[in-house]
């Protein structure tokens, strides 16, 4: 799979953002460059959700918020058997929602091999 996820780096002060912002949170400027966002993360919190929205034909899904080494905190789906706060995971990009015309790609965090 060639899909990638990106952080948005302010071209003036270098502050990283994810998701995209219109205005830099640190210096207020408006131009950003895309920077690959991937790698090892720490799991900050998670939940096992049983009542999923329409289109998710599974009995449950794990979701979590993780912290990348660059400090960015991000939400995503988890493919983890027994999540615990503080565990190290690795990011991958996968289909997070099946669409009618096109699928949505996003972060799926999984256990390090």
């Amino acid at each position, binding site marked *: 799979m060639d899909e990638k996820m990106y952080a948005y780096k302010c071209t003036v002060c270098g502050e990283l953002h994810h*998701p995209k912002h219109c205005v830099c949170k640190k210096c207020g400027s408006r131009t950003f460059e895309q920077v690959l966002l991937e790698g090892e993360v720490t799991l*900050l*919190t998670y939940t096992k*959700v*049983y009542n*999923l929205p329409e289109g998710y034909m599974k009995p449950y*899904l794990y979701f979590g918020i993780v912290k990348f080494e660059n400090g960015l*905190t991000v*939400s995503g789906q988890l493919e983890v058997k027994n999540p615990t706060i503080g565990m190290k995971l690795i990011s991958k990009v996968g289909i997070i929602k099946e669409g009618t015309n096109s699928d949505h790609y996003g972060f799926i965090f999984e256990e390090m091999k």
Partner: protein
Amino acid sequence: MREVGIVGVGHTKFGKMSGGTFTDMICMAATEALDDAGVKTLSGQHGIDQVFVATMGAGILNKQSGIASALVDTLNLRPAMAETIENGPASGASAIKLGYMAIASGICDAVLVVGGEMMRVVSGWEGTDFVATMLHPEAEYDYGITLPTLAGMFTRLCMEKYGITEKDLAIVSVKNHENALHNPVAHLNTVPDLYSITEDEDAGIINPYVASPLRLYSVCPVSDGAAAVLLCAMDKAEKFAKRPVKIAGIGQATDTHAVAEREVPTDLLAVRLAAQKAYEMAGLKPEDMDVAELHDAFQILEIVESEEVGFFKRGEGHIAARNGDTKIGGKIPINTSGGLKAKGHPLGATGVSQVVEIVRQLRGEAAGRQVEGAKAGLAVNFGGFGNNVVATILTKEEE
């Protein structure tokens, strides 16, 4: 700035509307408020300058846009000004805020605010999906993340940091259900048994996880319903039937859209800032409050909000709940109406419903759940997952 008060309240029974349109539903609450205030719904005689309708879904779920304009006509309040106000689950309190501003500015003398939601006409799936549209589109919604997902993750963090237990959430839930038994407009009128939903051998199956560690009995139901208040300038209040309850303070604050970007993940910063602004405007402090309606869509929120609004220190809200401090008769009764948990949560109506309960408490009209001698009350209406919060303080004026 002119002072503003509330002279009329109305409230439908929350739950499942059996028949009728969205307009029919909000009319019921609106006419009750107008009658309560002694307003004549006749052209040239009603004295209403502005109508605000608070709703998140009328246009989407019930296919009724421009609902405020429709209401003005059907209530015979033409040519009053009219707008629909949307701020997710905080639409109600936002509409009251705007009504306040309209009168305080001098532009209006009397403003009718009606909040309503009719969500049970669609399936549970569609309802959940619709509510999730207020989440961040790429960072949350596209992942299948819903409000319960965010609440589950928040709950786990708070449990980890402060030692809150699942049983604490159940204690709050049972309290709210008990309060609702005395509220004729509440959606739910059964009380869960604490032991049965926490310690019984089958508790895990009877009270299953919705989004761990949140269980079924810590999450509010999906409800239809409407509530209304009539605001007026305090200096023009004598022409209405009842003495006004004063809106003494209003505060509002926003926070990051994506929950993952919050600075302190266990804080509800917007709640804290909104409450602080409201206290400041009212010239009051947390200890001056006699009663509060705190937005408890998930029972964890009542606990954390009770801390962020200054009733208890951070990390001690659940201990106060365990000790009964938030029950009627306790130090600071919270959610005497039954809260969103047992009274119900029609999104657009909730903010107005909370204020109606505070008005009833301050007027001494809350039979069966009355807080004796209540003189000041706080309502906190939580929009999104805490990225837009409105706090309202009401006070009873001296005779």
